[in-house]
């Protein structure tokens, strides 16, 4: 196992060094970076899988000359699960990048991009492997900085620089909060080792525990993109190169989920008051609903996907929050179920979101635009991309037989089991959360009906789409790999659940494998078979048989299955792409229904013919959605700090002597204090 770790480390390090050392031949640089990452990620997948199945955690440590920093790693089942997820997405993205970077790298050097991407994956792997608070923060910071550098790959563009700066600020605020949480642990234990965090000599006081809870929630929540800390996602994810967006959205934001579980369930041993869980549940519900609602209004495909990350993080938090509530009432089985549902959705989201981002990248590669309104009719031109994108869309919309369905079903189950909680308030709140989740699911389905339909069906709306061609093979392999995982995770939960149970059991203190699986492991039945059970292979089989049945009936009763080429009737006019249903039109009803939340501003300008006011020459329609959080939360904050800075400018006189005096006075004051 340690050998695998060395292969992983060696692969990524080779991926960092080789492209930079090679002479300026983009072809070779792209391949060395890609192949190194593929080897390393392959080792990571095996390592993660072995870590999940082994009973004892693997540890290793290396003392460093920097005080308090020990390069300690620990591969327990939770870390192994995340190593596995990161490596799968990393593998797919690396394969994809080999083909993707051929044209669209912009001005950035291929070598630098490859090296940075390898370093990024390495840092992320060490975030989940770290067994020392200092080391964790180091890896975390490295991961954040590298992702920033990757986001600003196309830095000539003003929009990209702005997005990068925004992300940089947000992620550092988050890191500061995490650092405070760890420092509180350090203060009471005198060590940064995670082992002493778990078993502190003297337990933290109640206030301090609450403080750690809040600090970790804000700190990790910023990275995860919990509403209202989500604002950086829709800026940063779209402008990064697509394989980077896939990794950022697919797995980097999941490291925050890892952090939350590590702190709440591992360090605190699952001992916390009910309101912690309720807070997480509430934030999860809000994020899920608002994320999907903003996603619906978005016509930039990658921005749309970024908002969906907010939604799915919300769903993950719903599971974890429910688990936390159950845990605080000592309902260990249910807690384990909630946690398991959350983790299941974590890996699912990693797979389908990465897949969708890669798909969006393929569309960008083929059409050079991210605007959905300029797509159309792409299914005929890019059948493989369309097929993989469809699998991703079906998964994220939580339709059987794909993976999104199973995990959302499990989240629902754990939320409906709230009747076992003694408090009436929570008995009410959990089903409400379930109702919101149901609404979210419907809206997500609408959103992807829009995304897929507008992009792939009907006729091309622009020359970009008309000249699109299928993407090269590496891109298809990358997407295909993730699509396979989406289907596999959906059809075979009976394989996944026992593995996840190994992650959950040490955290919740109980193994529920035997309880969840029914009918010799062919069905999932979290409570009992009569109440609810789910047999996904049967479901898949049923779907296939029903489709075949429909086809058969069509053949028998509907006559010939022959394609007839004939012009579509266009009410006497010639059909043109301008008459197609647009994405804006598609979401118009929803915008009306939820106008309270969207606060839309609609602008309609009509230019009439000179001869008669009954005929319009040209109509312009614009609509904008109020970014509520930016307007009412972030803008006032920024304004406040700007004012503060203006006030403080008094001491910035520009005089060297004055600055020296500050230093002098501070020095003397400190010396006097020390006496």
């Amino acid at each position, binding site marked *: 196992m340690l050998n695998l770790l060395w292969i992983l480390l060696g692969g990524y390090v080779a991926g960092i060094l080789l492209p930079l050392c090679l002479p300026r031949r983009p072809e070779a640089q792209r391949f060395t970076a890609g192949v190194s990452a593929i080897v390393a990620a392959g080792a990571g997948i095996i390592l993660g899988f072995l870590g999940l199945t082994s009973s004892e955690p693997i540890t290793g440590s290396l003392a460093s000359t920097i005080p308090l920093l020990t390069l300690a790693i620990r591969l327990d089942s939770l870390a192994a699960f995340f190593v596995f997820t990161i490596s799968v997405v990393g593998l797919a993205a690396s394969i994809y990048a080999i083909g993707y970077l051929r044209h669209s790298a912009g001005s950035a050097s291929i070598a630098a991009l490859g090296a940075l991407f390898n370093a990024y994956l390495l840092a992320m792997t060490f975030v989940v492997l770290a067994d020392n608070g200092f080391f964790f923060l180091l890896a975390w910071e490295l991961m954040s900085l590298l992702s920033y550098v990757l986001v600003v790959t196309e830095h000539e563009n003003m929009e990209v620089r702005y997005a990068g700066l925004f992300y940089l600020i947000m992620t550092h605020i988050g890191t500061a909060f995490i650092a405070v949480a760890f420092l509180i642990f350090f203060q009471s234990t005198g060590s940064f080792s995670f082992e002493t965090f778990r078993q502190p000599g003297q337990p933290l006081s109640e206030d301090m525990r609450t403080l750690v809870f809040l600090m970790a929630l804000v700190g990790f929540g910023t990275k995860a993109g919990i509403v209202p800390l989500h604002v950086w996602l829709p800026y940063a994810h779209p402008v990064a190169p697509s394989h980077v967006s896939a990794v950022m959205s697919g797995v980097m934001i999941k490291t925050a989920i890892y952090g939350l579980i590590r702190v709440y369930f591992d360090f605190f041993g699952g001992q916390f008051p009910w309101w912690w869980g309720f807070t997480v549940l509430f934030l999860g519900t809000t994020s899920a609903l608002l994320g999907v609602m903003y996603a619906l209004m978005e016509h930039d495909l990658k921005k749309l996907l970024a908002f969906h990350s907010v939604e799915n993080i919300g769903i993950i938090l719903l599971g974890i929050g429910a688990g936390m509530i159950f845990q605080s009432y000592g309902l260990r089985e249910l807690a384990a179920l909630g946690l398991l549902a959350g983790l299941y959705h974590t890996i699912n989201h990693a797979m389908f979101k990465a897949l969708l981002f890669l798909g969006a990248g393929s569309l960008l590669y083929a059409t050079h635009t991210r605007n959905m309104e300029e797509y159309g009719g792409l299914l005929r031109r890019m059948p493989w991309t369309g097929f993989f994108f469809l699998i991703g869309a079906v998964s994220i919309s939580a339709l059987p037989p794909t993976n999104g369905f199973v995990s959302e079903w499990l989240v629902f189950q754990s939320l409906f089991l709230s009747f076992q909680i003694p408090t009436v308030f929570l008995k009410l709140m959990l089903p409400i959360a379930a109702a919101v989740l149901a609404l979210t699911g419907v809206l997500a389905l609408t959103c992807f009906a829009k995304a897929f339909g507008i992009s792939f069906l009907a006729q091309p709306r622009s020359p970009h789409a008309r000249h699109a061609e299928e993407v090269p093979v590496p891109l298809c392999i990358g997407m295909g790999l993730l699509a396979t995982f989406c289907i596999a995770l959906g059809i075979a939960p009976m394989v996944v659940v026992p593995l996840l149970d190994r992650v959950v059991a040490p955290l919740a203190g109980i193994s529920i494998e035997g309880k969840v699986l029914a009918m010799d492991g062919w069905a999932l039945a979290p409570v009992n078979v009569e109440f609810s059970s789910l047999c996904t292979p049967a479901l898949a089989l049923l779907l296939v048989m029903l489709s075949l049945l429909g086809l058969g009936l069509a053949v028998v009763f509907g006559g010939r299955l022959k394609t007839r080429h004939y012009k579509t009737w266009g009410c006497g006019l010639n059909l043109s792409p301008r008459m197609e249903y647009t994405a804006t039109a598609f979401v118009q009803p929803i915008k009306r229904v939820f106008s309270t939340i969207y606060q839309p501003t609609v602008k309609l300008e009509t230019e009439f013919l000179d001869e008669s006011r009954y005929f319009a020459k040209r109509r312009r329609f614009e609509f904008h959605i109020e970014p509520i959080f930016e307007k009412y939360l972030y803008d006032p904050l920024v304004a406040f700090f700007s004012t503060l800075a203006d006030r403080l400018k008094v001491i*910035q*006189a520009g005089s*060297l002597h004055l600055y020296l005096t500050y230093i002098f006075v501070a020095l*003397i004051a400190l*010396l006097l204090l*020390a006496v």
Partner: protein
Amino acid sequence: MQGLSSIGSQLVDLCSALLLLTCFAIVAQRRLSACVDLFALQSAFLVITAALVAYLTGNQHIYIAAALTGVIKVIIIPRVLKKVIDRLNVKRELVMYINVPAGLLICGGLVMLAFFIAQPIIPFGFLLTRDALAIALAIVLIGLFTMIARQKAVTQLVGFLVLENGLFLGATAATYGMPLIVELGVFFDVLVATLIAGIYTNRLQDAFDSVDTDRLTVLKE
């Protein structure tokens, strides 16, 4: 041995006191080139102090540090500064924020402050050089004060170098010298800092027709 170190200790104290004295002389001096000469003299005293410490403690590497001090601070840096002064053609330090008597009084206060601060630390120090620590601290404070009180960039540079001398004395006195590698690094840094500051001063002259750092306030936002 006891007798020898007693005499040695007094010699170290004497040299430290001479270092401090040159500090006062620098503060009192109005002419720029004299300031630089005084700095060279102070560095010469520092060389003697370091050599004494090296001899008395038997730490060979302090000899190297002393020799480097001699080459860099007694010979090279004063020459560089003289060249800068020649090029700038400013012989007198005309403007001061604080006049000479007041400056000397403040420096006296700083020396008392340094001794007051060092008082609790001195008993922990080594027998040989314990009083030198307080003097080193006083020199550091006076160096910083010089940087504040004078307006010309050149004298500020001298203040910085005096400050560095104080640090070097402190390091030698309190711990019998830093590891050689650190000392080499520090020497290099000081040399480079002086060169950069020399260039910067010339640029300042070109840009503002003056080396008055107060002019830099116009760069404020």
